[in-house]
């Protein structure tokens, strides 16, 4: 693997991490305010559809402004679903998880239903042409600096040449940090996710704060969806969010509900996706794989040594790992090379999240009042 390949993989990492990052920050605002949101996926999908449709329809008349109209439409669609989530979970104190599930299905069905009746293309939108897509932006001097060794390729290939939304997403990281941790609004928002009664006692409206958070979440999800359809791809395809909303949720837990760490987590998951796109099958020496499996199994047994239940559950997992190790030994032999399947790479973000959730690698503690509707005493 040469230097340029690494740069290219990192470049696609940044592209693939951007929608995850935006959705992750969206979830951050909502969940920090105590509103669980498993509807990120649906909001992204709805935004992707709305932005692609409007960008396509506006291209003839609006020219290069069409893509911006698309972005606004995407944000609008996403905020609409956010308000529905707010209505169910804040005003009517319903179950936030069930509401999120409903929103995911609503988006998944409606995008196809409307898409078919408007474009009649089997649920897709027509491919977007120049004015309907976000163009890549060249950073200044990228022509002149390209010849410098090491720094040149990094600047030209990796940092320059992304769409404007990528840079916007990166800017949102310090901005979110500042808003959440250095402003009065941020303090209140975090407080309402930990102890809404205290915020209420201080004379601040819990309902208004939570609605604000949910709307912010909608705006960020809208940008994420618009990036999917008008930045990463050229048009909307059925189910194009493809589980990214859930990976963003995983990244949020991975980052323990903090913005800067969210950048790290989404870049990691983006890197995994970029690697599995470029190398569908990764070859490893079988011996390395076997050692990893045995060490993992031993760790699990050690972790479960204290109670019978833990030992039986973790022991079961350890037994499966050992069975895989044995299978590798019998089929390829210790000296051979075995292939990590691409499916494993796809599942890795989810597996990592489960491990993080298990609390073996630092405990992820969600906001305390998360998921509970606030009932004011009468």
């Amino acid at each position, binding site marked *: 693997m040469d230097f340029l390949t690494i740069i290219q993989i990192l470049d696609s990492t940044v592209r693939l991490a951007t929608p995850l990052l935006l959705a992750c920050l969206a979830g951050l605002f909502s969940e920090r305010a105590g509103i669980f949101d498993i509807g990120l996926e649906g909001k992204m999908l709805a935004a992707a559809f709305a932005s692609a449709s409007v960008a396509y329809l506006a291209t003839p008349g609006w020219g290069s402004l069409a893509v911006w109209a698309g972005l606004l439409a995407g944000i609008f669609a996403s905020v609409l679903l956010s308000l529905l989530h707010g209505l169910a*979970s804040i005003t009517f104190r319903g179950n936030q998880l069930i509401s999120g599930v409903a929103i995911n*299905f609503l988006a998944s069905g409606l995008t196809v239903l409307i898409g078919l009746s408007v474009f009649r293309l089997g649920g897709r939108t027509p491919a977007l042409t120049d004015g309907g897509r976000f163009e890549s932006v060249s950073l200044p001097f990228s022509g002149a600096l390209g010849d410098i060794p090491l720094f040149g390729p990094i600047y030209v290939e990796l940092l320059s040449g992304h769409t404007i939304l990528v840079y916007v997403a990166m800017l949102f990281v310090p901005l979110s940090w500042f808003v959440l941790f250095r402003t009065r609004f941020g303090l209140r928002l975090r407080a309402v996710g930990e102890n809404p009664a205290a915020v209420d006692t201080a004379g601040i409206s819990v309902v208004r704060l939570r609605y604000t958070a949910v709307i912010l979440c909608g705006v960020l999800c809208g940008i994420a969806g618009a990036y999917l359809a008008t930045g990463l791809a050229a048009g909307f395809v059925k189910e194009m969010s493809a589980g990214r909303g859930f990976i963003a949720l995983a990244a949020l837990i991975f980052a323990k509900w903090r913005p800067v760490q969210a950048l790290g987590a989404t870049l990691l998951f983006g890197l995994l996706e970029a690697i599995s796109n470029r190398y569908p099958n990764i070859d490893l020496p079988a011996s390395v794989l076997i050692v990893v499996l045995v060490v993992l199994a031993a760790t699990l047994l050690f972790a479960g040594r204290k109670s019978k239940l833990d030992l039986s559950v973790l022991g079961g997992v350890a037994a499966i790992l050992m069975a895989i190790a044995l299978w590798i030994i019998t089929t390829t032999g210790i000296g051979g090379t075995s292939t990590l399947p691409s*499916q*494993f790479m796809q599942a890795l973000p*989810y597996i990592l999240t489960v491990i993080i959730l298990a*609390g073996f690698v630092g405990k992820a503690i969600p906001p305390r009042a998360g998921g509970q509707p606030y009932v004011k005493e009468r």
Partner: protein
Amino acid sequence: MEPMPKWADLVLVPVVGLVLAFIVSGLMIIATGHDPKEAVKLMVEGSVGSTYAWGFTLYYATNFIFTGLAVAVAFHAAMFNIGGEGQAALGGLGVALVCLFIPWPHWTLALLGATAAGAAFGALWATLPAWLQARRGSHIVITTIMFNFIAAALLNYVLVNVLRPAGAMDPATAKFPEATHLPALSDWLNAIGIPFAARTPANVTLFIALIACVLVYLLIWRTRLGFEIRSLGKSEPAAVYGGISPVKIIMISMMLSGGLAGLMAINNVMGEAERLVLNSVEGAGFIGIAVALMGRSHPIGILFAALLFGALYQGGAELGLWTQIPRELVIVIQALVILFTGALDQMIRMFVGKLFAMRRKAEV
């Protein structure tokens, strides 16, 4: 909140939710430029208008009974199991392994074996999320979502790299041997003189689903374990005070839930496809959520809700076949049912409660 009679709470509230969901769906059909009357007529005829249509409706309903019961059992313990999709997929793997690699002499024995395997695989897939919730406090909703994706990747790997017969192109197992083929519902009904369209996917698994309904009822309301499950669901501190171990009950209820979801596989994998294909569950695990909400987590309610969703699913397929309205309309209806009977439940409750309060006032 205004008090209302128990029947209103159990029946009227979900029915009002359902009606609202249908009204909004109707408006959406109008908005996309179609005729809702025509759509309803086609859906009703296509789902319950002939025994052929019933053959499909009952097949889908069987799937949804299993996944609905799965969600309901977990609901009773205040666990929200969104992992039905993955658990049913793993159940399918269990059923496929048992059907492919054990030479069964007769379908009855094969059915017993497949039932055990489907339930066991589904339950095992729910074990880890259950343990993570019970012992480590990791949220069951997040872990079961993650396990759905892991299951999809696992099934993909197994079907493409391990179980695919040599030379076959599509990622699926070989056809199950003849001896494991379940009799279709039409075979039995025709045998006792009731005419029923052949070549429909409804099969004897329907009876297993009905037995599962009865067993779940007995378990939840007539056994000590069921009492413990419901106690934990109502109030954890009270359950702990009463000497109930939350860890034990969470583990047991989630494994039961996973097992029920896994049982679905004997219907779709063994009864219908007769081989394991990619994405065999087709969202039935998620529809189980709507079914359980609609059916108020009670087996009788679930039975009716599953029939309704079976008819919707089949009717939606007919719509997609004969009109410009895509079958995704069913997903929208499903979403609206979840929204109105689940998330906006409180809104309808307040509304119905006010109605009763007004009537009481009028009587006084």
